[in-house]
């Protein structure tokens, strides 16, 4: 079970305000699928403009990234760069 952390706003919108959830899954995609089963609509929302940090390492457009059973999986707004 990975420890999933949702943005406050997403938690309020989809998960009755609860920000932390234990979710099974070996990849980000599997985690998102499980979340969507629990909170219908959340999966689709997480597909757009959302990045995911697995154990503190930010991934953009991650789908197949591996998630360890004890991983922290935090969903956060995607970051666009300002450039040099």
């Amino acid at each position, binding site marked *: 079970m990975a420890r999933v*952390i*949702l*943005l*406050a*706003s997403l938690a*309020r*919108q989809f998960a009755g305000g609860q*920000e932390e959830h234990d979710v099974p899954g070996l990849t980000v995609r599997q985690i998102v699928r499980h979340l969507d089963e629990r909170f219908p609509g959340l999966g689709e929302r997480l597909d*757009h*403009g959302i990045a995911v*940090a697995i*154990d*503190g*390492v*930010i*991934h*953009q*457009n*991650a789908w197949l*990234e591996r998630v360890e059973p004890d991983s*922290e999986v*935090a*969903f*956060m*707004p*995607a*970051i*666009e*760069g*300002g*450039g*040099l």
Partner: protein
Amino acid sequence: MTAHKYKWVGTRQNRPDGADKVTGRARFGADFNMPGQLVGKVLRSPHAHAVIKSIDISAAAKLPGVKAVITGQDFPEQPNQSMSAGEMLVNLRDVTRNIMAREKALYDGHPVAAVAAVSESIAREALGLIKVDYQVLPHVIDVDAAMKDDAPVLHDHLFTTGVEPKPTKPSNIASRIAFTKGKVEDGFAKAEVVVEEVYHTAPVHQGYIEPHATLASAAEDGQVQLWSTTQGHFQVRGFCSKLLNLETSQIRVTATEIGGGFGGKTVVYLEPVAIRLSQKTGKPVKMVMSREEVFRASGPTSGGRVDVKIGAMKDGTIVAADCTVALQAGAFPGSPVGPACMTSWACYDVENIRVIGYDVVSNRPKVAAYRAPGAPISAWGVESALDALALKLGMDPIELRLKNAAKIGTKTHYGPTFNTIGFVETLLAAKNSPHYKTPVKPGYSRGVAAGFWFNIGHDSSAAAHVGEDGTVTIISGNPDIGGSRASLALMAAEELGVDYSKVRPVVADTASIGFNFVTGGSRVTFATGLAVVNAVKNLITELKSRAAKIWEVEVDAVVWEDGMAKPSSSNVGKHEPLSLAKIAAMAGKTGGPINGHAQLNAQGAGPGFGVHLVDLKVDQDTGIVTIDRYTAAQDVGTAIHPSYVEGQLQGGAVQGIGWALNEEYIYNKQGKLDNPGFLDYRMPVASDLPMIETILVEVPNPGHPYGVRGVGEVPIVPPMAAIGNAIARGTGVRMVDLPMSPPRLSLALDAARPKAAAE
């Protein structure tokens, strides 16, 4: 420095495009021309907010030499939803209205029509013949005013998202976002010291010296060739394909050399217009913005309001951190309020945090990214408030930050827990710097501030081609703004074990290499660097297999060392090492050309932290600030080319100094920009500045083979607060609004000295 670990990485080689750029040979956006090209020009709204009742182009179209006149109606309507264009999430309904107004003009300078003519002067004359019937509406510029209930509303379809219950009437507040960690109320309840203040920043422009420019050639069969000065030619392709209903394969975009971007050249303004004009005329169309157009109509960054409240214990431990950030998005939603909120407290390990953000539209050009988008705005508030706290506690400002510094294992308020980061190391480097150890000169004062940026990875493609003489071409797809060709070539030479001079990096067009995300987010040396390293690894695998064929041994009997194939052990048999040149010379016999390639969505970009120190003097009579000494320390991972890393720190710091002291968009009562030029939009000049000292703290990023962290954006985050903090410590006056320009600072100083003010 970790340079000694490597032969090439960490050395200061001449950039591959150096000679072109010091001789005037390098071709930038406006330097491209085609036979028979037309000149394209844009007619812009003189009003900040107006309904466009009608546009009469007949007189302009009749003018001899005018080949086409277009308006918003010449572009297909777009759905009101976010979708990706060149991997960027954008609302195309808004983008198509930003490149050419439809129902309304939403800011001074908003394009309303465009012409293509045989000469510049005829094009200008034609613009004067276009009759636009405007119904002028009340306008709103500032974020505070735009959020008021009775403010003029820009978009009737805009209802604030992220609030419950859903609003029933439209407003200028596009969205509300919130981030929480712990319970901020509990933190304040136990806090022994509290500081609270409201800070503002003025909108500022990226200020790249090269105006936007493009050259479009659309053929009758629908194929388009485009030259554009951009940070991302693949994004230009993506935007243009969506906005003009063209297939990406039909558009070939070549990125010209680019004269600065800083985030402002990640979107499109002229490109779709030039293509449409070229389609209509069957001729190439060149468009170049004037400096005035750049200021009035290309993406500046937000002005904003930051409400900050910090609760701490007497020993300096911060127990509660609260801030609300409201940012101007310009005429359409999409300010960098997200990153502004996420970066606000990212430097600090605080138990209870609440951050609320508002994305607010107003009658200004749609903001574009600007170096660490949003972060400098929240940092101005947070880092100023921290200094006020340090003064209240009688604590050294670096000690206060050390006491609360984020480190590995710190859980951020936006979700993730930090992996390996270098904030503590950077604070210590600043604390132990010659600058900080030197006593402040009499009449001067010293300020300190910190800054954070995530840095990003994202999509990159690269290829490595071996020539018949064994030299190597490295092909990638990111415009080189600050020396990235050099850093990519250094990593390629290091990986391949050959001389830097044997590796030639080129930036390919959209048809000649796979997709690459923008040059931005401090990603190129990290992400495209990773793609280049992987392409070279892929090449080495091929080189080993060719050597194996030549020696008639198994592939695993061959190793690659110092740029040569060697037998893995003596029992492989006696074989003279094969150099790249030798293998290349026999390529035909062993299977043909030898190339490597790689494509990836780079993950694990390491965040960067900066700490800046400034000594300055305030002229008590005039409010003029003189910067005497400046040091920028930053966690840079590994400095691949130290000179260009230092350059990023120095350039970012000076942009921040401009933001702090003089740069601002000034609007008149009619909502027209009053200072659309370099004379009155006051960017720092050489005589305003001292040398900018740099300290490169190298905490390698575990997510990159050479430990690269992005370095370009962090340096613009700390300067404003560092300068404000120095002013507060020197004069006792805490400035809360940017810029701290002479009239504004003088007024504040006089207010603190009633007698002087009475003069």
